[in-house]
Protein backbone atom coordinates (compact mmCIF):
# COMPACT_ATOMS: atom_id res chain seq x y z
CA UNK A 1 0.00 0.00 0.00
CA UNK A 2 2.87 2.32 0.86
CA UNK A 3 4.71 1.63 -2.41
CA UNK A 4 1.51 2.09 -4.42
CA UNK A 5 0.81 5.32 -2.63
CA UNK A 6 4.38 6.56 -3.10
CA UNK A 7 4.53 5.76 -6.82
CA UNK A 8 1.06 7.20 -7.48
CA UNK A 9 1.88 10.37 -5.57
CA UNK A 10 5.13 10.86 -7.41
CA UNK A 11 3.58 10.30 -10.84
CA UNK A 12 0.14 11.90 -10.56
CA UNK A 13 -0.21 13.54 -7.20
CA UNK A 14 -0.25 17.33 -6.82
CA UNK A 15 3.00 18.92 -5.59
CA UNK A 16 3.07 19.23 -1.85
CA UNK A 17 2.98 22.80 -0.60
CA UNK A 18 5.21 24.08 2.15
CA UNK A 19 3.91 23.17 5.57
CA UNK A 20 1.09 20.82 4.35
CA UNK A 21 0.28 19.57 7.86
CA UNK A 22 0.12 22.97 9.46
CA UNK A 23 3.14 21.94 11.48
CA UNK A 24 4.34 23.40 14.69
CA UNK A 25 8.07 22.79 14.56
CA UNK A 26 10.83 24.52 12.72
CA UNK A 27 11.44 22.11 9.81
CA UNK A 28 8.04 23.07 8.32
CA UNK A 29 9.16 26.67 7.97
CA UNK A 30 11.24 26.02 4.86
CA UNK A 31 9.69 26.10 1.37
CA UNK A 32 8.75 23.09 -0.77
CA UNK A 33 10.75 21.61 -2.40
CA UNK A 34 13.36 22.45 0.21
CA UNK A 35 16.46 24.24 -1.07
CA UNK A 36 19.76 22.44 -0.64
CA UNK A 37 20.80 24.84 2.12
CA UNK A 38 17.50 24.35 4.07
CA UNK A 39 17.49 27.61 6.01
CA UNK A 40 18.61 30.71 4.19
CA UNK A 41 19.48 32.34 7.50
CA UNK A 42 20.13 30.86 10.90
CA UNK A 43 16.72 30.87 12.60
CA UNK A 44 16.49 32.45 15.99
CA UNK A 45 14.15 30.33 18.11
CA UNK A 46 12.72 31.95 21.21
CA UNK A 47 10.09 29.42 22.24
CA UNK A 48 9.19 25.76 21.93
CA UNK A 49 6.83 25.25 18.96
CA UNK A 50 8.35 28.30 17.39
CA UNK A 51 6.60 28.07 14.03
CA UNK A 52 3.19 27.39 15.57
CA UNK A 53 3.40 30.41 17.78
CA UNK A 54 4.39 32.49 14.80
CA UNK A 55 1.32 31.36 12.88
CA UNK A 56 -1.04 31.46 15.83
CA UNK A 57 0.31 33.99 18.29
CA UNK A 58 -1.05 33.95 21.79
CA UNK A 59 -0.27 35.66 25.01
CA UNK A 60 2.83 33.57 25.61
CA UNK A 61 5.08 35.73 23.44
CA UNK A 62 6.74 35.60 20.02
CA UNK A 63 7.67 32.41 18.20
CA UNK A 64 10.31 33.02 15.55
CA UNK A 65 12.20 36.25 15.21
CA UNK A 66 11.19 36.74 11.60
CA UNK A 67 9.72 33.82 9.61
CA UNK A 68 10.21 35.66 6.32
CA UNK A 69 13.96 35.78 6.91
CA UNK A 70 14.06 31.99 6.78
CA UNK A 71 13.09 31.87 3.11
CA UNK A 72 14.64 35.15 1.99
CA UNK A 73 18.43 34.95 1.82
CA UNK A 74 20.09 37.84 3.56
CA UNK A 75 23.21 37.53 1.42
CA UNK A 76 24.95 35.20 -1.00
CA UNK A 77 24.82 31.61 0.16
CA UNK A 78 27.75 29.39 -0.71
CA UNK A 79 26.75 25.77 -1.21
CA UNK A 80 28.76 23.31 -3.29
CA UNK A 81 26.56 21.79 -5.98
CA UNK A 82 25.84 18.06 -5.88
CA UNK A 83 28.82 16.14 -7.21
CA UNK A 84 29.48 12.55 -8.28
CA UNK A 85 33.26 12.95 -8.06
CA UNK A 86 33.65 12.04 -4.35
CA UNK A 87 31.72 8.80 -4.93
CA UNK A 88 33.76 8.01 -8.06
CA UNK A 89 37.00 8.74 -6.19
CA UNK A 90 35.97 6.38 -3.41
CA UNK A 91 35.06 3.62 -5.91
CA UNK A 92 38.37 4.08 -7.74
CA UNK A 93 40.24 3.79 -4.44
CA UNK A 94 38.29 0.60 -3.72
CA UNK A 95 39.53 -0.84 -7.02
CA UNK A 96 43.06 0.32 -6.17
CA UNK A 97 43.07 -1.24 -2.72
CA UNK A 98 41.47 -4.49 -3.94
CA UNK A 99 44.05 -4.73 -6.73
CA UNK A 100 46.86 -6.42 -4.77
CA UNK A 101 44.49 -9.29 -4.00
CA UNK A 102 43.69 -9.84 -7.67
CA UNK A 103 46.31 -8.70 -10.16
CA UNK A 104 48.89 -5.98 -10.60
CA UNK A 105 46.94 -4.68 -13.59
CA UNK A 106 43.97 -3.94 -11.33
CA UNK A 107 46.27 -1.82 -9.15
CA UNK A 108 47.37 0.17 -12.20
CA UNK A 109 43.78 0.64 -13.41
CA UNK A 110 42.65 1.61 -9.91
CA UNK A 111 45.53 4.05 -9.57
CA UNK A 112 44.75 5.73 -12.89
CA UNK A 113 41.04 5.95 -12.05
CA UNK A 114 41.86 7.40 -8.63
CA UNK A 115 44.07 10.10 -10.13
CA UNK A 116 41.46 10.94 -12.81
CA UNK A 117 38.64 11.12 -10.25
CA UNK A 118 40.70 13.16 -7.79
CA UNK A 119 41.72 15.62 -10.52
CA UNK A 120 38.09 15.89 -11.68
CA UNK A 121 37.02 16.51 -8.09
CA UNK A 122 39.70 19.15 -7.63
CA UNK A 123 38.93 21.02 -10.86
CA UNK A 124 35.15 20.86 -10.54
CA UNK A 125 34.61 24.16 -8.79
CA UNK A 126 37.19 26.20 -10.64
CA UNK A 127 35.89 28.84 -13.05
CA UNK A 128 35.35 27.65 -16.61
CA UNK A 129 38.09 27.88 -19.18
CA UNK A 130 38.74 31.44 -20.28
CA UNK A 131 36.57 32.83 -17.48
CA UNK A 132 39.56 34.72 -16.11
CA UNK A 133 40.07 35.27 -12.43
CA UNK A 134 36.43 34.76 -11.63
CA UNK A 135 34.75 32.37 -9.28
CA UNK A 136 33.47 32.86 -5.81
CA UNK A 137 35.52 32.80 -2.67
CA UNK A 138 35.34 30.05 -0.11
CA UNK A 139 34.02 31.33 3.19
CA UNK A 140 36.53 31.19 6.02
CA UNK A 141 36.09 28.46 8.58
CA UNK A 142 36.08 28.80 12.35
CA UNK A 143 38.24 31.64 13.68
CA UNK A 144 38.75 32.91 10.12
CA UNK A 145 40.94 29.94 9.20
CA UNK A 146 40.63 28.47 5.72
CA UNK A 147 39.57 24.84 6.33
CA UNK A 148 41.57 23.62 3.34
CA UNK A 149 44.78 25.06 4.76
CA UNK A 150 43.95 23.65 8.18
CA UNK A 151 43.44 20.19 6.69
CA UNK A 152 46.64 20.46 4.69
CA UNK A 153 48.67 21.40 7.74
CA UNK A 154 47.27 18.31 9.47
CA UNK A 155 48.45 16.29 6.47
CA UNK A 156 51.90 17.85 6.70
CA UNK A 157 51.96 16.91 10.38
CA UNK A 158 51.34 13.27 9.42
CA UNK A 159 54.08 13.56 6.81
CA UNK A 160 56.48 14.61 9.59
CA UNK A 161 55.81 11.27 11.26
CA UNK A 162 56.24 9.42 7.96
CA UNK A 163 59.63 10.91 7.17
CA UNK A 164 60.61 10.86 10.83
CA UNK A 165 60.22 7.10 10.79
CA UNK A 166 62.25 6.70 7.60
CA UNK A 167 65.07 8.91 8.90
CA UNK A 168 65.03 7.10 12.24
CA UNK A 169 65.39 3.70 10.59
CA UNK A 170 68.27 5.01 8.47
CA UNK A 171 70.06 6.36 11.53
CA UNK A 172 69.47 3.19 13.55
CA UNK A 173 71.11 1.06 10.87
CA UNK A 174 73.80 3.61 10.05
CA UNK A 175 77.21 2.01 10.37
CA UNK A 176 75.87 -1.54 10.59
CA UNK A 177 76.35 -2.61 6.98
CA UNK A 178 78.47 -5.75 6.78
CA UNK A 179 79.57 -5.18 3.18
CA UNK A 180 80.24 -2.09 1.07
CA UNK A 181 79.86 0.25 -0.63
CA UNK A 182 79.63 2.58 2.36
CA UNK A 183 78.30 6.15 2.40
CA UNK A 184 81.49 7.83 3.66
CA UNK A 185 85.23 7.13 3.48
CA UNK A 186 86.08 4.01 5.46
CA UNK A 187 89.45 2.37 5.90
CA UNK A 188 90.98 4.01 2.85
CA UNK A 189 87.95 3.15 0.71
CA UNK A 190 86.23 6.28 -0.58
CA UNK A 191 82.60 6.74 0.31
CA UNK A 192 79.94 6.50 -2.33
CA UNK A 193 78.09 9.73 -1.50
CA UNK A 194 78.90 12.61 -3.84
CA UNK A 195 78.84 15.65 -1.53
CA UNK A 196 79.65 18.38 -4.13
CA UNK A 197 76.96 17.13 -6.48
CA UNK A 198 74.34 16.85 -3.73
CA UNK A 199 75.27 20.30 -2.44
CA UNK A 200 74.39 21.72 -5.84
CA UNK A 201 71.07 19.87 -5.97
CA UNK A 202 70.32 21.02 -2.41
CA UNK A 203 70.94 24.60 -3.42
CA UNK A 204 68.71 24.09 -6.44
CA UNK A 205 65.85 22.81 -4.27
CA UNK A 206 66.24 25.70 -1.82
CA UNK A 207 66.06 28.20 -4.65
CA UNK A 208 62.96 26.48 -6.01
CA UNK A 209 61.36 27.22 -2.64
CA UNK A 210 62.25 30.87 -3.21
CA UNK A 211 60.57 30.89 -6.63
CA UNK A 212 57.56 29.08 -5.12
CA UNK A 213 57.03 31.73 -2.46
CA UNK A 214 57.30 34.38 -5.18
CA UNK A 215 54.56 32.56 -7.14
CA UNK A 216 52.31 32.63 -4.06
CA UNK A 217 53.02 36.33 -3.50
CA UNK A 218 52.32 37.06 -7.17
CA UNK A 219 48.90 35.41 -7.24
CA UNK A 220 47.94 37.01 -3.95
CA UNK A 221 48.45 40.44 -5.48
CA UNK A 222 46.71 39.32 -8.71
CA UNK A 223 49.79 39.34 -10.96
CA UNK A 224 49.00 36.30 -13.12
CA UNK A 225 51.94 36.79 -15.46
CA UNK A 226 54.43 36.64 -12.58
CA UNK A 227 52.52 33.68 -11.13
CA UNK A 228 53.02 31.72 -14.33
CA UNK A 229 56.70 32.70 -14.51
CA UNK A 230 57.51 31.68 -10.94
CA UNK A 231 55.48 28.48 -11.14
CA UNK A 232 57.46 27.52 -14.25
CA UNK A 233 60.72 28.35 -12.46
CA UNK A 234 59.73 26.15 -9.51
CA UNK A 235 58.85 23.27 -11.80
CA UNK A 236 62.22 23.65 -13.52
CA UNK A 237 63.97 23.59 -10.13
CA UNK A 238 62.11 20.42 -9.18
CA UNK A 239 62.96 18.72 -12.46
CA UNK A 240 66.65 19.62 -12.09
CA UNK A 241 66.64 18.16 -8.57
CA UNK A 242 65.01 14.95 -9.85
CA UNK A 243 67.60 14.79 -12.63
CA UNK A 244 70.40 14.99 -10.05
CA UNK A 245 68.74 12.25 -8.02
CA UNK A 246 68.28 9.97 -11.03
CA UNK A 247 71.91 10.50 -11.96
CA UNK A 248 73.00 9.75 -8.37
CA UNK A 249 70.96 6.55 -8.14
CA UNK A 250 72.27 5.38 -11.52
CA UNK A 251 75.85 6.02 -10.42
CA UNK A 252 75.29 4.09 -7.19
CA UNK A 253 73.89 1.08 -9.03
CA UNK A 254 76.85 1.13 -11.43
CA UNK A 255 79.16 1.13 -8.42
CA UNK A 256 77.48 -1.98 -7.07
CA UNK A 257 75.00 -0.49 -4.59
CA UNK A 258 71.71 -2.23 -5.32
CA UNK A 259 68.57 -1.97 -3.23
CA UNK A 260 69.44 -5.09 -1.23
CA UNK A 261 73.24 -4.80 -1.19
CA UNK A 262 73.46 -3.77 2.45
CA UNK A 263 71.56 -2.00 5.22
CA UNK A 264 72.80 1.39 4.05
CA UNK A 265 71.49 0.83 0.52
CA UNK A 266 68.14 -0.44 1.72
CA UNK A 267 67.41 2.39 4.14
CA UNK A 268 68.97 5.05 1.89
CA UNK A 269 67.04 4.15 -1.25
CA UNK A 270 63.71 3.87 0.58
CA UNK A 271 64.11 7.20 2.37
CA UNK A 272 65.57 9.25 -0.47
CA UNK A 273 63.35 7.49 -2.99
CA UNK A 274 60.22 8.43 -1.06
CA UNK A 275 61.45 12.01 -0.93
CA UNK A 276 62.01 11.94 -4.68
CA UNK A 277 58.49 10.56 -5.15
CA UNK A 278 57.18 13.52 -3.14
CA UNK A 279 59.15 15.92 -5.32
CA UNK A 280 57.73 14.22 -8.44
CA UNK A 281 54.18 14.58 -7.11
CA UNK A 282 54.92 18.23 -6.36
CA UNK A 283 56.17 18.83 -9.90
CA UNK A 284 52.98 17.29 -11.32
CA UNK A 285 50.87 19.39 -8.95
CA UNK A 286 52.62 22.61 -9.92
CA UNK A 287 52.42 21.70 -13.60
CA UNK A 288 48.64 21.28 -13.25
CA UNK A 289 48.44 24.72 -11.60
CA UNK A 290 50.57 26.21 -14.36
CA UNK A 291 48.26 24.77 -17.04
CA UNK A 292 45.25 26.19 -15.18
CA UNK A 293 46.96 29.57 -14.92
CA UNK A 294 47.77 29.59 -18.65
CA UNK A 295 44.18 28.69 -19.50
CA UNK A 296 42.86 31.50 -17.35
CA UNK A 297 41.21 29.24 -14.77
CA UNK A 298 43.39 30.41 -11.91
CA UNK A 299 43.07 33.88 -10.46
CA UNK A 300 43.27 35.78 -7.25
CA UNK A 301 40.16 34.13 -5.74
CA UNK A 302 41.95 30.79 -6.14
CA UNK A 303 45.19 32.04 -4.55
CA UNK A 304 44.78 29.64 -1.66
CA UNK A 305 45.24 26.71 -4.10
CA UNK A 306 48.70 28.00 -5.03
CA UNK A 307 49.35 28.72 -1.36
CA UNK A 308 48.61 25.12 -0.40
CA UNK A 309 50.75 23.76 -3.24
CA UNK A 310 53.49 26.05 -1.93
CA UNK A 311 53.16 24.60 1.55
CA UNK A 312 53.69 21.13 0.09
CA UNK A 313 56.71 22.28 -1.88
CA UNK A 314 58.33 23.97 1.12
CA UNK A 315 57.67 20.88 3.21
CA UNK A 316 59.52 18.77 0.65
CA UNK A 317 62.31 21.32 0.93
CA UNK A 318 62.57 21.17 4.74
CA UNK A 319 62.59 17.37 4.63
CA UNK A 320 65.53 17.57 2.27
CA UNK A 321 67.29 20.01 4.61
CA UNK A 322 67.11 17.28 7.29
CA UNK A 323 68.13 14.47 4.93
CA UNK A 324 71.07 16.42 3.50
CA UNK A 325 72.48 17.02 6.96
CA UNK A 326 71.72 13.69 8.62
CA UNK A 327 72.55 11.43 5.67
CA UNK A 328 75.08 13.23 3.53
CA UNK A 329 77.06 15.47 5.85
CA UNK A 330 77.17 13.67 9.19
CA UNK A 331 79.74 10.90 8.93
Amino acid sequence: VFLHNAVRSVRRGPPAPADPWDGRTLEWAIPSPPPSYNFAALPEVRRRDALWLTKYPDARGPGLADPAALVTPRGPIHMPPPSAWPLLTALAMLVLSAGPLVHLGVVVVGGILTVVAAVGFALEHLPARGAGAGGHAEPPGPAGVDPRKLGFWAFLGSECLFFGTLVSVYLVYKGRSLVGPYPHDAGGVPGILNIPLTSISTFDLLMSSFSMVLAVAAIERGDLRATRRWLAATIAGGLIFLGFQAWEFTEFVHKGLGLTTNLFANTFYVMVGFHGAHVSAGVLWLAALLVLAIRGRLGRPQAVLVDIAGLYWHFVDVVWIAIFTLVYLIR
Partner: protein
Amino acid sequence: VSETPSPPPPDRPGAAAHPAAGIRTYALIAVFLFLLTAMEVAVFYIQALAGVLIPVLILLALAKFALVAMFYMHLRFDHPWFSYLFVGPLMIAVGLAIGLLWLFHVFGSTGLRTPPGG
Protein backbone atom coordinates in the same frame (compact mmCIF):
# COMPACT_ATOMS: atom_id res chain seq x y z
CA VAL B 1 63.79 44.32 -5.61
CA SER B 2 61.19 46.33 -3.80
CA GLU B 3 59.33 45.50 -0.64
CA THR B 4 55.83 44.70 -1.88
CA PRO B 5 53.87 42.91 0.80
CA SER B 6 50.90 40.90 -0.35
CA PRO B 7 47.70 42.65 0.68
CA PRO B 8 44.94 40.48 2.10
CA PRO B 9 42.46 39.74 -0.67
CA PRO B 10 39.31 41.66 0.21
CA ASP B 11 37.07 38.86 -0.97
CA ARG B 12 38.76 36.20 1.13
CA PRO B 13 38.96 37.32 4.73
CA GLY B 14 41.21 35.09 6.75
CA ALA B 15 42.45 33.23 3.71
CA ALA B 16 45.91 33.30 2.19
CA ALA B 17 46.99 36.73 3.26
CA HIS B 18 50.54 37.24 4.41
CA PRO B 19 50.85 40.97 4.86
CA ALA B 20 53.91 40.77 7.09
CA ALA B 21 56.22 39.21 4.49
CA GLY B 22 57.41 40.90 1.32
CA ILE B 23 59.56 40.02 -1.64
CA ARG B 24 62.62 41.63 -0.08
CA THR B 25 62.19 39.43 2.98
CA TYR B 26 61.88 36.34 0.81
CA ALA B 27 65.04 37.29 -1.12
CA LEU B 28 66.92 37.87 2.12
CA ILE B 29 65.87 34.45 3.38
CA ALA B 30 67.09 32.90 0.12
CA VAL B 31 70.51 34.52 0.64
CA PHE B 32 70.63 33.20 4.21
CA LEU B 33 69.69 29.71 3.01
CA PHE B 34 72.49 29.81 0.45
CA LEU B 35 75.03 30.99 3.03
CA LEU B 36 73.96 28.40 5.60
CA THR B 37 74.23 25.62 3.03
CA ALA B 38 77.68 26.84 2.03
CA MET B 39 78.69 26.86 5.70
CA GLU B 40 77.40 23.30 6.12
CA VAL B 41 79.48 22.04 3.22
CA ALA B 42 82.52 23.98 4.42
CA VAL B 43 82.21 22.54 7.92
CA PHE B 44 82.04 19.06 6.40
CA TYR B 45 85.41 19.51 4.70
CA ILE B 46 87.28 21.31 7.51
CA GLN B 47 89.12 18.61 9.45
CA ALA B 48 89.72 20.88 12.44
CA LEU B 49 85.96 20.96 13.07
CA ALA B 50 85.54 17.17 12.94
CA GLY B 51 85.05 17.02 16.71
CA VAL B 52 82.09 19.38 16.66
CA LEU B 53 80.78 18.36 13.24
CA ILE B 54 77.46 16.90 14.41
CA PRO B 55 76.26 19.72 16.71
CA VAL B 56 77.35 22.43 14.26
CA LEU B 57 75.64 20.75 11.32
CA ILE B 58 72.45 20.13 13.29
CA LEU B 59 72.36 23.77 14.40
CA LEU B 60 72.83 25.00 10.82
CA ALA B 61 70.13 22.62 9.57
CA LEU B 62 67.75 23.76 12.29
CA ALA B 63 68.32 27.37 11.28
CA LYS B 64 67.50 26.57 7.65
CA PHE B 65 64.47 24.54 8.67
CA ALA B 66 63.17 27.36 10.85
CA LEU B 67 63.71 30.01 8.17
CA VAL B 68 61.74 28.06 5.56
CA ALA B 69 58.95 27.09 7.97
CA MET B 70 58.53 30.54 9.51
CA PHE B 71 58.85 32.73 6.44
CA TYR B 72 58.26 30.67 3.29
CA MET B 73 55.52 28.57 4.90
CA HIS B 74 54.25 31.70 6.70
CA LEU B 75 53.98 30.02 10.08
CA ARG B 76 55.20 33.23 11.67
CA PHE B 77 52.30 35.21 10.23
CA ASP B 78 49.51 32.65 9.91
CA HIS B 79 47.04 31.36 12.46
CA PRO B 80 48.72 29.58 15.43
CA TRP B 81 46.60 26.47 14.79
CA PHE B 82 48.80 25.77 11.77
CA SER B 83 51.91 25.85 13.95
CA TYR B 84 50.34 23.48 16.47
CA LEU B 85 49.34 21.04 13.74
CA PHE B 86 52.85 21.02 12.31
CA VAL B 87 55.13 21.35 15.32
CA GLY B 88 53.18 18.83 17.43
CA PRO B 89 53.74 15.84 15.12
CA LEU B 90 57.25 17.11 14.38
CA MET B 91 58.11 16.89 18.08
CA ILE B 92 56.62 13.38 18.19
CA ALA B 93 58.77 12.43 15.17
CA VAL B 94 61.90 13.81 16.85
CA GLY B 95 61.01 11.96 20.05
CA LEU B 96 60.48 8.79 18.03
CA ALA B 97 63.88 9.16 16.42
CA ILE B 98 65.66 9.79 19.71
CA GLY B 99 63.81 6.89 21.34
CA LEU B 100 64.73 4.49 18.54
CA LEU B 101 68.37 5.59 18.54
CA TRP B 102 68.51 5.08 22.30
CA LEU B 103 66.75 1.71 22.05
CA PHE B 104 69.24 0.47 19.46
CA HIS B 105 72.24 1.76 21.47
CA VAL B 106 73.29 4.26 18.83
CA PHE B 107 74.18 6.78 21.55
CA GLY B 108 76.27 4.20 23.40
CA SER B 109 79.12 2.04 22.23
CA THR B 110 77.55 -1.40 22.11
CA GLY B 111 76.35 -1.30 18.52
CA LEU B 112 77.30 -3.81 15.90
CA ARG B 113 79.20 -1.18 13.97
CA THR B 114 81.69 -2.62 11.59
CA PRO B 115 83.68 -0.28 9.39
CA PRO B 116 83.72 3.35 10.53
CA GLY B 117 82.23 4.56 7.29
CA GLY B 118 79.60 1.85 6.95
